[in-house]
């Protein structure tokens, strides 16, 4: 304890301030504990118990069955594909947004965010209408003579990927755009003055400086894809079986809460593992956007 005038009172004021901050956090901490940690704990417990209440690993053992490994594989393939397409489409779009005038930027922003303000289900069914056998896309393709037979664009892997990409794109564009606007224009100017052509300036200076944003977008989209349910369920037409749909079936069709819990736990663990690896590789502060 420091000696001196008012030392005790000053220390008490410091303690009081900290207590105040702690009290402010309390409602949020309580809410998260009750609606998140408690159910997850319960899920975890359920996945290790039989219906009679005994301890068991059968729910996990069953996941080695081909039906589940196939679903696991599909989930990852689809998530990888959608993330890759989102990155390939999102980076140029975000770059465009960061370069154009304020008016154009606002217009692109609105068109990127507009889907955000529309219901997920509405957008998914809209894609169903567009992509079906006699949908707008196929009709146009046939009328212009690009294809003779209508393409199978829906109720399969392709349709699911198209729909998911559309819905996931804003999650890629927004962190990318934030990272790009944070890059000082003088960096690119500096590289140009030092002799770098525009292409070299881009790849050697601009792109590396926007990597944190790209990684944030990739992780965000990938993790969201892993647990995606609505769009694959509608556009996959039952042929694309995502992990989330396996969970739903276990509960809705078989009423097997233990199996569903085990599947949920696996999805959670895999997601956390990916986040952990990304964090170890690139540092968590980059995801939060602190630079």
């Amino acid at each position, binding site marked *: 304890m420091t000696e001196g005038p008012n030392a005790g009172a000053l220390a008490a004021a410091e303690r009081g301030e900290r207590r105040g901050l702690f009290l402010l956090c309390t409602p949020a901490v309580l809410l998260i504990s009750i609606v998140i940690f408690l159910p997850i704990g319960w899920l975890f417990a359920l996945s290790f118990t039989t219906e009679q209440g005994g301890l068991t690993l059968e729910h996990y053992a069953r996941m080695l069955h081909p039906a589940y490994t196939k679903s696991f594989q599909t989930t990852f393939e689809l998530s990888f594909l959608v993330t890759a397409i989102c990155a390939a489409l999102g980076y140029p779009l975000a770059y465009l947004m960061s370069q154009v005038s304020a008016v154009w930027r606002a217009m692109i922003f609105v068109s990127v965010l507009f889907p955000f303000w529309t219901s997920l289900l509405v957008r998914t069914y809209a894609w169903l209408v567009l992509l079906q056998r006699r949908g707008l896309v196929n009709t146009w393709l046939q009328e212009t003579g690009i294809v003779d037979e209508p393409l199978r664009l829906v109720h399969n892997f392709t349709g699911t990927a198209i729909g998911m990409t559309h819905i996931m794109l804003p999650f890629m564009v927004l962190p990318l755009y934030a990272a790009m606007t944070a890059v000082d224009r003088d960096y690119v100017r500096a590289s*140009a003055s030092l002799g770098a052509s525009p292409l070299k300036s881009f790849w050697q200076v601009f792109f590396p400086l926007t990597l944190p944003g790209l990684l944030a977008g990739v992780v965000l989209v990938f993790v969201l894809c892993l647990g995606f349910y609505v769009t694959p369920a509608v556009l996959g037409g039952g042929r694309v079986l995502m992990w989330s749909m396996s969970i739903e079936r276990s509960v809705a069709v078989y009423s097997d809460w233990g199996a569903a819990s085990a599947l949920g736990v696996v999805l959670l663990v895999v997601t956390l593992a990916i986040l952990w690896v990304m964090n170890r590789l690139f540092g968590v502060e980059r995801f939060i956007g602190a630079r």
Partner: protein
Amino acid sequence: MKPGVTAPPVAIREVTKTYGRFRALDAVSLDIAAGEFVTLLGPSGSGKTTLLMVLAGFVRPDAGSIRFGDTEMVLTPPHRRDIGIVFQNYALFPHMTVAGNVGYPLRLRRIAKAEIARRVEEALALVQLQGYGERRVDQLSGGQRQRVALARAIVFEPRILLMDEPLSALDKKLREQMQIEIRQLHERLGITTVYVTHDQREALTLSDRIAVIDKGRFAQIDAPARLYERPATRFVADFVGESHFLPVEVSAGVVRLGGRPLALGASSTARDGAALLVVRPEKLDVIDGQDTAGLNRIDGVVEGSVYQGESFLLQVRVAGGVRVTMRQPTRREALRRLPGTGEPITLGLHPEDTILVAAEGTP
């Protein structure tokens, strides 16, 4: 680094740049000799940074010509201009080490690795940062970043060096130290340099010549001493150094301040009509009898004083109600001569320091 072998002269001819209705540059022309250190000095929004950006190639002017030696450069893209630039915020690449930053222009020029390493170390030694190559940029202090930016801008032996207020982020002591270092570096390398600042003292310290820019036009282009001692306009007198202005009347070649004639220096002439006398605080002296013959006399009353350590400021209200400031060093005998507040005083001004500028427009 070979001193100044490739430094060409720079010719800026009638460069105009407008943003909407705003004329950032209004047909400015400036010749910079090979190896010369020229400073663009002006307040913010005067067009000095725009001119620098035009020189660098980041801003395309509406019209005009930029020549390096005999080569027209105005359409050449920035990466082919071979110009070293030190940016205001340094613009050091955060994803590269110090050596990575300094070596970057050499890597772009496909120079052999060993040669790059040697030249990077040489450039770092030149700015007194030997052995800092492996540091990350965010591990450096402001002054060190400044030096790295300088090393990066000169390591590839550019034809011209541009500096955009490079010292504005540093504290006063460091800034003054860096000014001397930049000056010495320029003397060693002999590289044609264009320096932009709004700090008149920095401009006076560093430059061979100063181009004072105001509202997109050059107000005066001169060597520091001439610019300070013989300002051409009220704006220059006001912006460079501290000045007070006393209205005077000129008739038949005789300058009168409140009816009393003033003697002018040998090189000065005055046109008839209204004019302004430029009074700088340190040019004024106290007239108390002896040894003051030949000085112009200005009568006034002491209104107050400020002690500033190395000098002493005396505020004097002179005839006509204008307040001027006199600066005196805080030497004992100088202080003893100063009258107290409320007492009358006669100020002396040497004819060679008696400068007139046109009274146009401004009060």
